[in-house]
């Protein structure tokens, strides 16, 4: 079933009305969700008509329908990719068996944990981005922010549906808790570190959507391989939405770079002070923001050696990125993988069982993907004839999780003393000064077709609309 029923309170393509108990449970969760949205959703946006993309079905033709919608009326709901008939498990110890339509008792706790962790990140993003609308550099960007927000909200719905439908009372309690935790809350923070960081300015937002939402891509892709079929189908559809978030980040940073390069060429300078005075973000600051978001995000993949990861894989809960495209035995029992460790102050590689290193495998896939995008950013400078290139820092730089946690490392992968770290960390990570400078540029610019001075316009509008289209109408 691919068409989504919008005539009901909770739009869905899972025949919700055929399961009255579940329907009632979700309908009682819904007011809490709306309250959460009102409390911590995009600030001051209640009456805006936003040119949003909404799915009417989950097939390629129907899922991207554009129109003006008030965000609070966005049709949040439950959309799963169509079921694949007779799908079998294609990795782990259950390889070849039929995919599960229900949660096997022995994997219940682990599956719940995976779903809750994923679900927790979704509202967290909205909370982190709550105030950004007030400093949007254009209508176009404001609309993109709101699109990201409503879809993060829907991703929360996706996970909540799984919790309610398959995890009984535990699931309902976990679903409630998803709305109780809050990003950055000292007493009840979000589960993962990166989701408690602030997203105070648009450069952080772009870096976040580029790096952190890309983590989402890899996590969702790994879950889309799951033997638990409802999870696989849910995350497959979420991946389609997630792509927009990464687009906002990649194109956003690219446009900031483009504008900076333009001003550098106009003024004929790479002097940071002159550039800042001219109202653009200098390239070394961009590099520091990159270093921060990248290092915080790669922590999201977890410890480099993890018995949980091995269990998740062997039991079929979570595959690798593009599991189906890999040509190995998909069991990985006798294979090894290289992870980094520090011995006598030096970084070295060691072989560990592949199954235990699956977090690292996913992290490395992510790193490769991230690097490719940074190379695309560098083309902006290349085209502008500017001799500056961004690079991702070493994998061991600024890590808080795993064997590399607390190891002091320069961005180029050189172990440094605590003393050197202290004296040079301001070269490597954004300083308070950087952040306050960037914050000083953040002023709302909402005339159609106008853009703040620190960012270039996009190459094309959304849904082939012109760049000066009225993406948000203020009532």
């Amino acid at each position, binding site marked *: 079933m691919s068409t989504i029923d919008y005539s009901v309170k909770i739009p869905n393509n899972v025949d919700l009305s055929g399961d009255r108990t579940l329907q009632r449970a979700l309908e009682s969760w819904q007011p809490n969700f709306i309250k959460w949205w009102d409390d911590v959703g995009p600030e001051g946006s209640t009456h805006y008509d936003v040119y949003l993309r909404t799915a009417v079905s989950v*097939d*390629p*033709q129907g*899922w*991207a329908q554009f129109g003006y919608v008030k965000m609070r009326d966005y049709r949040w709901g439950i959309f799963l990719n169509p079921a694949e008939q007779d799908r079998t498990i294609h990795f782990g110890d259950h390889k070849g068996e039929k995919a599960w339509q229900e949660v096997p008792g022995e994997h219940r706790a682990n599956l719940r944990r995976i779903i809750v962790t994923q679900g927790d990140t979704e509202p967290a993003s909205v909370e982190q981005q709550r105030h950004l609308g007030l400093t949007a550099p254009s209508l176009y960007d404001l609309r993109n922010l709101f699109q990201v927000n409503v879809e993060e909200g829907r991703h929360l719905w996706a996970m909540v549906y799984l919790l309610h439908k398959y995890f009984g009372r535990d699931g309902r309690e976990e679903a409630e808790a998803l709305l109780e935790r809050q990003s950055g809350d000292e007493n009840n923070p979000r589960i993962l570190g990166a989701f408690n960081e602030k997203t105070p300015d648009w450069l952080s937002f772009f870096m976040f959507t580029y790096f952190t939402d890309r983590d989402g*891509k890899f996590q969702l*892709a790994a879950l889309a391989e799951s033997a638990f079929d409802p999870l696989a189908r849910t995350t*497959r559809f979420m*991946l*389609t939405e*997630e*792509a*927009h978030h*990464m*687009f906002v980040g*990649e*194109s956003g940073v690219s446009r900031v770079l483009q504008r900076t390069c333009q001003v550098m060429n106009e003024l004929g300078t790479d002097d940071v002070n002159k550039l800042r005075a001219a109202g653009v973000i200098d390239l070394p600051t961009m590099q520091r923001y990159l270093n921060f978001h990248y290092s915080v995000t790669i922590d999201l993949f977890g410890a480099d050696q993890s018995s949980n990861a091995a269990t998740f894989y062997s039991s079929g809960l979570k595959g690798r990125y593009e599991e189906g495209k890999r040509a190995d035995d998909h069991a990985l029992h006798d294979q090894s993988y290289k992870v980094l460790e520090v011995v006598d102050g030096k970084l070295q590689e060691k072989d560990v069982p592949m199954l235990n290193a699956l977090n690292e495998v996913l992290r490395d896939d992510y790193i*490769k*993907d991230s690097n*490719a*995008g940074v190379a*695309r950013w560098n*083309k902006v400078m290349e085209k502008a004839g500017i001799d500056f290139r961004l690079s991702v820092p070493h994998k061991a730089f600024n890590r808080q999780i795993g064997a590399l946690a607390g190891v002091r490392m320069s961005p180029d992968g050189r172990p440094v003393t605590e003393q050197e770290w202290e004296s040079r960390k301001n070269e490597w990570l954004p300083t308070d000064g950087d952040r306050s400078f960037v914050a000083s540029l953040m002023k709302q610019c909402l005339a159609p077709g106008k853009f703040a001075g620190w960012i270039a316009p996009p*190459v*094309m509008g959304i849904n*082939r609309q012109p760049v000066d289209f009225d993406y948000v109408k203020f009532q």
Partner: protein
Amino acid sequence: MTTTTLIANGILNQHLIDPEICIRCNTCEATCPIDAITHDDTNYVVMADKCNGCMDCISPCPTGAIDNWRKVPAAEPYPIDAQYGWDELPPALSAEQLAAAASDVQDLSQAQAVIAAAAESTGSGTGSSTSTRASASSASSVEQSVQESFRAASFGATVPPWSAAHAYTNLHGPKNPVTATVVGNINCTEAGFDNETHHIVLDFGSMPFPVLEGQSVGIIPPGTDATGRPHVARQYSIASARNGERPGYNNAALTVKRVTADHEGRPVRGVASNYLCDLKVGDTVQVIGPFGHSFLMPNHPRSHIVMICTGTGSAPMRAMTEWRRRLRKSGKFDGGKLMLFFGARTPQELPYFGPLQSLPKDFIDNNFAFSRVPGQPRRYVQDAMRERAADLAALLRDENTHIFVCGLKSMEEGVVLALRDVIVQAGMDWDGVAARLKQQGRLHLETY
């Protein structure tokens, strides 16, 4: 499902992804229902030989990078390896570049590209509306949405049979057409029917215009179109043998169906077809060409020819049959067989029906299929082919067999599927046979 036209007039509207905008999110690859999109570490790319223009990938793309198209000669799409190396999309080919590049493109495509380019240069736009063959189909019939995942056109050869004679092409372009004189114009369908088809003979006088069976020419109608621009050329297949409709004279015949309705049945008068059908002996016409260098008949004595056509798609079949008939007296083709599958709505509308009936049975194996005979079930060429599966299979086992398909585009898929069924049912391997037919220039598709 929304689809987009991929191939029209020998020009492929190639689906490409803009590497400058694409964020490599994998959505397109995950969405594509036929795995026509792939990637390496650098770029996401669309495989031109797989993409069927279904457009499923368009709306899920968050960036718009997926919605990029370049017109290229159908035989020369940008290959995957080239796309992997791109930092940005290549510039669009100009009309002149397309025409020049398209001069090597297979038969029908070749001529249509030239004509399309000529249309472009006169400002009339390109595409199907500017060129058509002699047929009932309105100009828009060339514009055929590619909706099937089974792409029959991909099975057609782009090389001629090994024993084909060398063809001259492009001797006369739109800027220097040849003036030919009408020396014959007769209705070759039963008189009195709406859909009359004319057999028109043109004499080139002392101008060189060497043509082979299977080649085509372009005719430029006089006057101007609705926008005041000169009409562009329309393409017609040669219906006569290489040594002329009248042997020993510098002439050639065309088969022209008078167009009186468009595809939806709305009345419309085809500009070129009505001009041609109304010509009197002694009138002159402007001709360009010849076009085509692969839809050519084999000439070796053991070669068999299977001809499958509808309507004016019979023109090249009539040409080949006539050349074989003339040579038959020499005894050269005793081993080579001719088998014809010919479709029309009614016997009365079937061009050359009378003359075909009078050919000896041991010379040509005729199979007719009529789709609109009152009181009889509709029957198409592919039905006739399936009925003759055993004999067709025997011919297909022989590497001397060449297959020519010509007629309305809508027949192409059915015919190729029928061929496949015949081959599979005969216990042969379709992929292997199809690949050999294509590589050896033994299966030619010319539809419009």
